[in-house]
């Protein structure tokens, strides 16, 4: 899914070229990729240069299914970042990916009152502009 949002102020933006940048490049391609150790297979997020499990420096950016569940949320009231000022109150969530790692994100198309633990969600990607795409989540309708 592609959605464009308009933000009133400069959007908080990762600096290209750091060791974290491949995460954002993958989002641009509408892929959620997380570092996986090539020695022991452990997934880790945030990105880091060594595996905390086995200390190997060898890793790949592994493609995630994008399926996750909501394990926490908050509803933010002022004061907030200037780019988010026109959205208050807005929600932010922590999801646990099907593969294990956790991620801070937001839920799209969900009323604040409907936030709940264990909501099944699926990643989607929102273009902030021509350079930045952020991963967001949508509720998977229960069968």
């Amino acid at each position, binding site marked *: 899914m592609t959605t464009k949002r308009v933000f009133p102020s*400069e*959007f*908080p*933006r*990762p*600096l290209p070229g*750091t060791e*974290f940048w491949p995460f*954002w490049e993958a989002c641009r391609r509408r892929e959620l990729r997380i570092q996986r150790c090539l020695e022991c297979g452990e997934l880790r*997020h*945030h990105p880091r240069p060594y595996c905390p499990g086995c200390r190997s420096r060898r890793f790949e950016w592994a493609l995630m299914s994008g399926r996750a569940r909501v*394990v*926490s*949320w*908050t*509803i*933010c*009231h002022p*004061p*907030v*970042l*200037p*780019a*988010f000022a026109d*959205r208050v*109150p*807005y929600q*932010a969530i*922590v999801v*646990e990916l099907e593969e*294990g*790692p*956790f*991620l*801070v*994100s*937001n839920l799209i198309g969900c009323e604040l009152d409907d936030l709940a*633990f264990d909501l099944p969600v699926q990643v989607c990607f929102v273009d*902030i502009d021509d350079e*930045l795409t*952020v991963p967001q989540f949508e509720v998977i309708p229960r069968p």
Partner: protein
Amino acid sequence: MSAGLRDRAAIVGIGQTAFGRNLGRSELDLACEAIMAACADAGVPVGSIDGLVSYDIEQVAAWHLGSTLGLDGLRFFCGTPSGGGGVASTVGLATMAVATGAAEHVICFRSRNRSKAASYGPGHNQGGRPWEKTTSGLADLRQFHHPFGIAAPVQEMALIARRHMGVFGTRAEHFGMQAVAQRHHASLNPAAIMRAPLTLDDWASSRMIADPIRLPDCSLENDGAVAVLVTSAERARDLRQPPAYVLGAAQGYHTIHTELADTFARSGLFGGPSTIGGRAIAERLFGMAGVGPGDVDAAMIFDHFTMAVPLTLEQYGFCPMGEGGPFIATGATRWPEGRLPVNTHGGSNGEAFVHGFNHLPEAVRQVRGTAVNQVEGCEIVFVNGAITDTHGAVLLRC
């Protein structure tokens, strides 16, 4: 476990400035006043200070203190990770210094001026309000929070608190009850900024900041400085005040709240086995001290937000995992009737926020028997740093 640092050192002097908004004084100025007050309290000449311990993020440089207070004898310097994590760790480090002879009179201090002139600047650690800062070109791990609207500690703590509620059934009211207890303590403390009592109804109708955290759950934004003087147990016996002996001191690695993905994956704040943070520190701390959580008479718990109190109670074994909220609901943390009064000076939402450092002099006053909200028969007091960071804890005894 080894007795290690047990009874090798004592806090012999405490000093603090007035606490308030926009005191109009620099952090150096405030630090000097608190340090001199700690020396005067102990009866130790300021020029005898030979060691300084502070947080890594402290903005008052050792050389500026040396040049301002004439501390020509300085020979020991040391910092400890993060901000609120380091409260109690500083005392442990000072204890090591005096136990090894690296120094004899060690000052641990924190100074904060939160007025805009002082806290806005280019320095990474220079206070400032994170939600007001421009955040383009994020080169660090803030890039995994800020693009999702998570920028302030209160928002990060809200996500941690909500998870705790989901796993254990903790209720937001439990945080509110702790806010009310601390404001009750503050209302009786002339040094406190927030003297007006707070009821649970007031709390429930107060402004929401980051659901489930409300305004009275939050630490204050104010200026002020605090210092404590640590010396060896032998030297302590010659000084003016009854010593507050360091019965145990320990530090430990922990994930930080600014890296929430890692906190959720590894911290142990939400149950399950944990080899990091509070539970690991508790084992070392109580092992060294030869006492248990049940022997503690009062606790000064780092409370950037009141949600930290139930989590700390659990991690350090004052109650079982997941029962921090119900523990507070019994009134256990409220002075004078509670069985473990917590933050008897009013804590960070009542007395002042000095990055938790004002908890140290209150612990000393409780051990001396001179606190305004004195716990009867108080012999052992617990102090810790931020449960959500790499932090440390100490036990003080009379």
